[in-house]
């Protein structure tokens, strides 16, 4: 950064981020003097944190040096923090002056001067949000304000209603849970009964199968031999019809005939009418 004036403020020349160090001062100017004069020129910066100068370069223009001669200088200062650099100036001691002055500061910036500047910096700590502790006693509480007349009875009634509603809701939820639990227990018992019946049936089938196998396999059944004649003897050569049956058949037929006749009788009655 450069400034053409003979006195300059560093705040107008350089930024002031933390970690900025000035490395070199490069300056040039032309001397105006008589050849026989002795002129001393100071290029300098005040010490911002104390008296004196943080940087001061002296140029002696002795007799014999000609007016109009320019000086070009590069002065390494070795990484001096920006905060130490006060205002700069070119001061002339003697019968002369300078013109076409130019001062340049070269600097570097350490991006990790503060590790919190960049998450990539070594030593970076993730910032935690500041949680302020509040003194609850210092907060305004309208219920404690003597100047406020509150209707406390209304508030209590409202609170009781809310309590009753909440209690009902709570009881309903508990009852719902109980119902579900009972249903679950009943379903479990039914399942157990069905399982028991099925198990019993399977056991019985197994027992029967076992019994059949046992009789056929382990006992020899024997029957007495000989001829067993038929004991049925039919004495009559002709079997007559049963009279009871005939009677019953006639009775049925009579009833049937009566029903038909009744139908006809009804038709005749309608025709007569």
């Amino acid at each position, binding site marked *: 950064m450069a400034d053409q004036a003979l006195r300059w403020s560093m705040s107008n020349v350089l930024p002031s981020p933390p970690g900025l160090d000035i490395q070199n001062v490069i300056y*040039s100017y032309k*001397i105006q003097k008589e*050849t026989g004069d002795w002129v001393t*020129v100071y290029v300098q910066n005040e010490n911002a944190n104390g008296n004196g100068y943080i940087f001061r370069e002296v*140029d*002696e*223009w*002795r*007799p*014999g*040096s*000609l007016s109009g*001669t*320019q*000086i*070009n*200088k590069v002065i390494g200062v070795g990484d001096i923090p920006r905060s130490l650099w006060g205002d700069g100036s070119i001061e002339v001691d003697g019968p002369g002056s300078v013109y076409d002055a130019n001062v340049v500061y070269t600097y570097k910036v350490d991006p990790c001067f503060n590790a919190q500047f960049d998450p990539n910096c070594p030593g970076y700590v993730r910032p935690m949000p500041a949680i302020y502790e509040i003194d609850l006693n210092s907060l305004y509480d309208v219920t404690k304000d003597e100047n406020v007349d509150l209707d406390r009875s209304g508030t209590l009634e409202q609170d009781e209603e809310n309590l009753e509603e909440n209690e009902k809701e709570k009881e309903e939820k508990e009852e719902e849970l109980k119902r579900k639990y009972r249903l679950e227990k009943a379903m479990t018992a039914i399942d157990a009964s069905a399982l028991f019946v099925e198990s019993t049936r399977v056991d019985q089938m197994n027992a029967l199968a076992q019994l059949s196998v046992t009789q056929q396999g382990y006992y020899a059944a024997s029957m007495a031999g000989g001829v067993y004649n038929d004991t049925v003897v039919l004495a009559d050569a002709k079997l007559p019809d049963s009279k009871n049956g005939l009677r019953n058949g006639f009775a049925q037929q009579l009833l049937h005939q009566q029903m038909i006749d009744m139908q006809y009788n009804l038709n005749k009655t309608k025709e007569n009418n």
Partner: protein
Amino acid sequence: MIKHKKTNLLGLLGVAALVTSSTFAQAENVPINGVVQSRCIIQTDNAGTYGNPNAYTLSTASSDGGELSIVRFDVSLASAYFAIITAPTDFSSSPSLPDVPTFVGDTTVDAVSDSTGMGAYESNKIEYGFTDKYDLTATGSTWFKTSSTVTMGGNKAFPGGNYTALVVAECIAQ
């Protein structure tokens, strides 16, 4: 290299002790090398340019549309060199000229890096015609500027074309 030579000599002595009946001679050239870093470096900061303010004049003055030639001498050993700079006295290349041109030139100190040690370079220089001789008594950089003005004889016009003239800058050990 000297140590190497002694070793060879001892070897020769051993051989001489064993071979007593015959004698012989051997010669060896041993180089001594050295590198001298230059302590005077010349660099061209700005090649001059001729302006053409009128038909018969070429000039490096900025008022004439030209540029001065600036050469820099960097010296790291004080009072060991002379800077000898000669302004142009002729064109190194140009179109065919209708007459003889007249050259005028001068060299002066343009800038220094040490006011105390170099401030009097200009006052103490020695001039030989177009040549200026400076005693480089301080370490650092010195910028010399050379002006040149050429006027065609008889006020004749310079023919169109490219003109080149050379400034000769030398660093001569004292």
